[in-house]
């Protein structure tokens, strides 16, 4: 289970019991995230989503795992896709919550963001990280859940501001559409009906572009449904992973 930007592996607390009953669970903190984040982060290596994918493959190799079910949230969705393209034998399924292969709009592609808006976002992050978090957290959580907002803010603050800025540049600057097109692994996309980071069209684009993907739009809002609507997410997992449960 691989968390998304601004959270750490604690983000899985609501889903973990369900998954643990059915699988052996491995979760970890992405480079730059979690309590010791600054030490694991390399500004050059992690300036690309592929650096994170290399980390993921190294970790799975280290543990000697093959054919795992990978659950990735947000940026971890495309990290999993990149890793699965390079090493198909390591993965049997990819579950992607709130995935986007590209955040910037492009000809014939709606990512939800324009360069100008992103430049403003980076500028306000750089100018005052505290104030930026205060505005960004409730927007991303997307539902009136003060505990989730407080928790997301806490893990955002856990990141060193320069690392958070560089990470968001990497994410929002990424274009993983070619990667998505060649994922050899079956993919289950889960997204909410209203997600500030990922328009519905992005999920539809992915479902159409990936060789073997399902899309479930759940009746929830926000970018963090595994935290704010875990029952909905569990229901989809139950259904999509039914054949795999031992």
């Amino acid at each position, binding site marked *: 289970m691989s968390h998304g930007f601004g959270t750490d592996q604690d983000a899985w607390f609501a889903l973990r019991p369900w998954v643990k009953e059915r699988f052996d669970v491995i979760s970890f903190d992405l480079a730059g995230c979690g309590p010791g984040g600054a030490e694991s982060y390399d500004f*050059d*290596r992690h300036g*690309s989503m*592929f*650096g994170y994918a*290399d980390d993921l493959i*190294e970790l799975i190799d280290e543990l000697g795992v093959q054919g795992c079910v990978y659950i990735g949230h947000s940026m971890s969705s495309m990290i999993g896709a*990149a*890793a699965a393209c*390079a090493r198909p034998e390591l993965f049997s399924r990819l579950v992607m919550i709130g995935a986007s292969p590209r955040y910037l709009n492009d000809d014939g592609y709606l990512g939800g963001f324009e360069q100008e808006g992103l430049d403003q976002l980076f500028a306000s992050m750089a100018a005052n990280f505290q104030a930026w978090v205060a505005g960004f957290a409730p927007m991303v959580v997307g539902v009136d859940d003060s505990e989730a907002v407080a928790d997301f803010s806490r893990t955002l603050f856990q990141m060193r501001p320069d690392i958070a800025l560089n990470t968001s540049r990497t994410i929002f600057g990424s274009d993983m559409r070619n990667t998505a097109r060649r994922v050899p692994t079956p993919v289950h996309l889960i997204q909410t009906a209203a997600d500030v980071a990922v328009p519905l069209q992005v999920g539809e684009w992915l479902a159409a572009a990936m060789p073997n993907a399902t899309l479930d739009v759940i009746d929830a809002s926000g970018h963090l449904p595994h935290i704010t609507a875990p029952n909905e997410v569990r229901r989809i997992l139950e259904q999509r992973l039914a054949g795999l449960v031992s």
Partner: protein
Amino acid sequence: MTPSPNEALYELCGFARVACEADLVMALEVDDAGRASPVASSPPHDFSSFNLTRSGLFDIEWSAIPDAANKYRLPTAVVHALPEMPTSLLFVPAPVEHAPRSGLLLLWTRAPSPAPLIEHVRLLASSVASTLAARREAVRQVAMRDQFNDLLESVPSGIVLFDGDGQSAMINERAAALLACRPGSHRSSELAAPMRALRERCANHAELETAYAAQVGNVHYAATQHWVLGERTYEVDTHPVSGDGQHGRIWLFTDVTAELRIAAKLRGLAQSDPLTGLPNRRHFEEQAAQILTAAVAAEHTVALLMVDVDHFKQINDTHGHPVGDAVLKAVAGRCSDVLRDGDLFARFGGEEFIGLLTITTEHEAAVIAERLRNAIAYTPVLIGQLAITVSVSVGAATTRMMSATSGEVLESLIESADAALYRAKQNGRNRVTIA
């Protein structure tokens, strides 16, 4: 034009790709920890760095024969730079100092046809290595220059650096602004005129010319001078580089205007009485010594006046201390107004003031003392709604200064004037008494 090392590496990759019918060729700079920076590739891609320690690429002795790609752990970025999974690869080591694992990586997505040129791709190794080394050196020099420039511009001073060869010079942005020319490298001769022009614009340029003229021909001289340019003052330090003029000469321009102002202000604060703004007793004594010395030389007569506010305690008791303070300020102001520029007038303590003046006749002392008395008494002091009638008593003593005059002349003048003041008080106040 010679291509830059970067361009040359792209060309080498392109040549290798065409010659070997490969799908991707990368020039990699790899340190001994396996950290790899993809420096160039064909086709070109933007790569971040990755680590090749566990890739397996360094575990075998490479010959000219491509190997099966699935035996190696390739970074995901490399896989994604290809349209599909690679089937074969070949690594051509091109070790460089500080990056001993560098080399060319060739990848194929189909088994390469046994093109005869693959065998010869190893001949590129030495070119790749020398170009990587040249690039590394270029990057290092740029980094050093950037660091140096950053340092140069972080210093809050203008810097002019003349090289020891007498040919070239370098100035930072602050110096460029002062000299009205562009920052960066110049020929030494181009900077001589702006430097001279700046000096000639200084208010104190005559003094500066004299100071620097004395050093003409001395390559080792070091000096610090103040250059006064309009309202600003620069401390200009010049010294030979590493103490030897043969190595060059450095000029540092530091704007010290604010420091000088603060220093002058602090000096003023230490010397004046905070309530009235008049010199305090200590400063009076310093200044008095100078006046008396000057008067000895000119054999002038001096007058010492003791001025005391009448019934001051009563004013304080009736109206309170704030009003008492306002009265003292008014007295100080009125007295200062009727005295001449060169006269010294200070607060001596409490409600007592002291004046020291150079006069031509003894009679003049009485005139000035009377002027002071009248300046206070002629109209009440207005404080808010209050009109307070205030008067002062003045005791004066005079003496003609001569070389034989005793060193304790100030003490004896104060003593005499004090005695006269006492009599003025005894005789009913608001009056002048001459000793």
